[in-house]
């Protein structure tokens, strides 16, 4: 049998993850309802003042995504821990880096779908205006989801086998994601609200830089981490 290339193998891993997800749709359903509840809780906690809610909507949206991502990322390697599936995956004659790329794309696509589902909810709850710059908004959401998934995939591979893994993942992941959160919230704000000083561009650059840095660091580190699983 012909051995698949790096990207070919990554595609196979991605397809496998999508297939597992599509058969039950359990993970997507769970994180959608979880983040719906989170967004609803934010609006309860902040009270009914629509002006405040609208101003802080980007922050709520990204916190909702961030909390949901912890559940989703944790699950991503938990399924592999069953029957030592990850060991089997690592033993196949493909680069472990292909597993990393496939897993990052799988996690990012799931989060991206979630973020698209949350947009109409944000309109309903926080009365935001999506029509101002929809293309940039989708780009910000996409870059942000990749940014959460790149370090998140490495940490999830680590914490899937550690004790107290549910605490471990956010403890490791959240500090690293601080710049991503700042950049994504600011960029989202400037796609939903007026941007008189044209700051959107520099935040988009920061998001892109974050994604590229963590994709390459993860690409280098993942084989070492996967070896120990």
């Amino acid at each position, binding site marked *: 049998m012909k051995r698949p290339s790096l990207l070919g193998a990554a595609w196979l891993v991605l397809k496998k993850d999508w297939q597992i997800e599509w058969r039950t749709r359990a993970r997507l359903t769970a994180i959608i309802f979880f983040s719906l509840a989170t967004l609803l809780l934010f609006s309860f906690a902040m009270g009914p003042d629509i002006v405040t809610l609208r101003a802080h909507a980007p922050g709520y949206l990204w916190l909702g995504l961030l909390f949901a991502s912890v559940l989703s990322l944790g699950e991503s390697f938990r399924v592999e821990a069953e029957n030592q599936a990850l060991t089997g995956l690592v033993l196949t004659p493909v680069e472990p880096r292909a597993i990393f790329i496939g897993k990052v794309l799988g996690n990012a696509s799931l989060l991206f779908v979630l973020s698209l589902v949350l947009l109409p909810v944000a309109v309903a709850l926080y009365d935001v205006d999506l029509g101002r710059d929809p293309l940039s908004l989708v780009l910000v959401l996409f870059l942000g989801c990749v940014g959460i998934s790149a370090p998140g995939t*490495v940490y999830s591979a*680590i914490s899937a086998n550690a004790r107290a893994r549910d*605490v*471990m993942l956010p403890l490791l992941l959240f*500090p690293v994601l601080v710049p991503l959160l*700042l950049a994504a919230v*600011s960029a989202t704000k400037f796609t939903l609200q007026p941007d008189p000083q044209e700051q959107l561009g520099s935040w988009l650059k920061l998001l892109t830089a974050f994604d590229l840095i963590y994709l390459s*660091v993860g690409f280098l580190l993942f084989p070492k981490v996967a070896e120990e699983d």
Partner: protein
Amino acid sequence: MTPILPLVVLALVVAAMLGHVAVPAVRPWAWKAVGALGAVMLVSLWYFGLYWAPPEQFMSDVGRILYVHVPHVWMALLAFTLNVGCAVAYLMKKSWVTDALAESAAEVGVYFGAVGVMMGSIWARPTWGVWWDWDPRLISTTVMLLAYVGYLALRSFTEDPERRATWSAAAAILSYVSLPIVWFSVRWWNSLHQVQSNPSTVDKPMVAVLRWGAVTMLCFLFVFIVKRYEIARSRQTAAMELPPLEAPRAEVA
């Protein structure tokens, strides 16, 4: 005291450190000598910092916390840099020595960083009127500290020693990489911290005392890491049967 004197002492301390690493025969006493020097320097730092140095132009006596606050943060960064260096070295060539050194550097770094951030907060209250603020250096140091607390938690929650070493090395590199990005993002967000000073903008006696403080803390950093490293090594050898290290797996082309 002139600004040169601390640099002379620094050369002595660095020589002792290099001697400790390179010559096993001096190991039993080199750390004691550095520790004693540090204690003497600490006592003189009280005199230099509290009486000898002139009060700061705008902050008067409040500014004197600078002589301990800044060295603490410097030492934390130094310790974290040592930690990430060990992490990279471990991933390139597995060794229990770099793993133990990484662990001790991280723990000592968290101590220095936590004390440094607390002192910064004490300084901020009378100067800015708040305990906490959106400042790049403050936030990036705190985020770094949180990341390393996570690192230590990961170490204590992983039983298998080889897994622990590899995973924590990966976690250390991921956290260290985030430091410059945190710094930039918070600087773009907002900034209030005074512009970083350099020796040409600061009065000569103040430079001298700051350097004196830094060398003092360097002595303690060295002693702490040496002792913590010994603990880490004896834990490794005593508490567990060390498995043989496997050779790095051949990459599949």
